[in-house]
């Protein structure tokens, strides 16, 4: 019966959440050992919790194998625990697995795991999913979809996503062009130190697009971008008319 299978899944969900409870004794022991710098013991404790199905422990164990903390570096073990945790819905493990797929050239796998992590509200994954849509990696290229995912990550305060969203507004790619919106998002990213956003915001102040022209603001933001080594900003700062208005 349909109700039976739905019931069964609501029970399974409770079991999964119960298994992943932070009250897991081995997990707690592992955290204490890790914080005390006793990595080998921590790895053993996390290993026991991981065997019990504790997703957070599985994830930590995989990162310890990646970073050879308390255990020998072991890509196969790292990948195995990462996948187990990812399949249990651990978003960080999903994001790491997506990156592992990407590095191995498996774009379809990278996209699928990135999408699951993005659905789990992870800003980094939402941003990367936007990038994959924009570049057409592992999925058909779509700047409209890219804009959607950049926006979700941007709303969470992810600076690179704010800058990418602003770019799409600036060029009118995937969404209707709006210099006002571009200025709004460039500013948020610029305030977080994103060099391209700082340069672009300076440019918008210079030409008065989306915001009122303001020479002092133009100079200030362009200089900030140049200080970070942004090439166009450096050329701009070195230009004669910039030095002697």
């Amino acid at each position, binding site marked *: 019966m349909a109700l039976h299978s739905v*019931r069964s899944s609501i029970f399974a969900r409770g*079991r999964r959440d119960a*298994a992943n409870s932070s009250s897991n004794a081995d997990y707690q022991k592992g955290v204490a050992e890790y914080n005390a710098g006793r990595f080998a013991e921590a790895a053993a404790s996390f290993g026991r919790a991981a065997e019990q199905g504790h997703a957070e422990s599985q994830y930590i164990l995989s990162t310890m194998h990646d970073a050879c903390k308390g255990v020998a570096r072991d890509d196969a073990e790292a990948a195995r625990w990462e996948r187990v945790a990812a399949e249990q819905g651990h978003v960080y493990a999903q994001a790491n697995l997506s990156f592992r797929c990407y590095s191995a050239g498996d774009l379809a796998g990278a996209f699928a795991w990135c999408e699951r992590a993005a659905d789990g509200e992870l800003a980094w994954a939402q941003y990367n999913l936007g990038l994959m849509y924009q570049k057409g990696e592992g999925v058909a290229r779509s700047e409209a979809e890219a804009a959607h995912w950049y926006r979700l990550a941007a709303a969470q305060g992810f600076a690179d996503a704010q800058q990418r969203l602003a770019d799409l507004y600036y060029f009118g790619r995937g969404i209707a062009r709006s210099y006002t919106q571009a200025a709004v998002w460039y500013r948020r990213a610029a305030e977080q130190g994103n060099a391209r956003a700082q340069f672009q915001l300076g440019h918008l102040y210079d030409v008065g697009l989306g915001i009122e022209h303001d020479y002092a603001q133009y100079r200030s933001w362009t200089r900030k971008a140049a200080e970070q080594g942004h090439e166009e900003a450096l050329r701009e700062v070195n230009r004669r008319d910039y030095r002697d208005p």
Partner: protein
Amino acid sequence: MSAEIILQRSANAAGLAEKRERLAAVRGALAEREADIAQIRSQLKAFEGQYLRRVGVLYAELDEIAARITEREVDLYESDSARRRAQEARERAQETHEAAFGGEQEPEEFDPSPSLKTLFREVAKRIHPDFASDEAEQKHFTLLMTRANQAYSRGDAETLQRLLDDHLEINASGADEGDGAALLRVVRQIAHAERDIAALDGEHETLLGSEIGQLYGDAEAAAREGRDLLDELAAGLRERLADAQYRLEFVERQVSALGR
């Protein structure tokens, strides 16, 4: 000649007495198994109700808020993936709601088919405790009658048919039976009881191996450590609910800021 016959009889009689003892033991074990299973079933039923009331409703609430968030995100910014996400989240919320609250519906009215009624009557008139020949048989008939009543009320024709077949097989030798026929009868009864024990053991395993059975096992293990698993699950879910509520309000503020 006659001495040989007497010897033969007494051997048969001794075998019969031994088999009758064995039958009584097996039937005793069967009755115990039935009581165990009935207890497990009612414990799981009660636990299921508690779980759905204390935890299931929170999952339903969480999925409802998640669905609303994705729907607001569509308002905020239209795209195919936003719409697909919202649709999936809505379906999930409906499923969880159904799972958490579906059990509160009234059970369907009991309306047995005429053929089931006839079958039940055929079984009942053969195993009614009032017609038992001795005390042991009366005890066994009471057990069979309980089983027949349960099978009838859940419309389980298969079990009723098996009860009838068992009875017919046992009594196939007819009314006028010597020790040999009686022995055969008892051997069959032992075989039936052993088969039923095996079936109950299978059901026992299935019950404890089911998702709810395992969750019940986890809760019992936690209780032995002085923990309340359902409380812990509910507390974790309330934290996630607060987080989800915050995200919903955040998206709603964005929507109203855009004036959509």
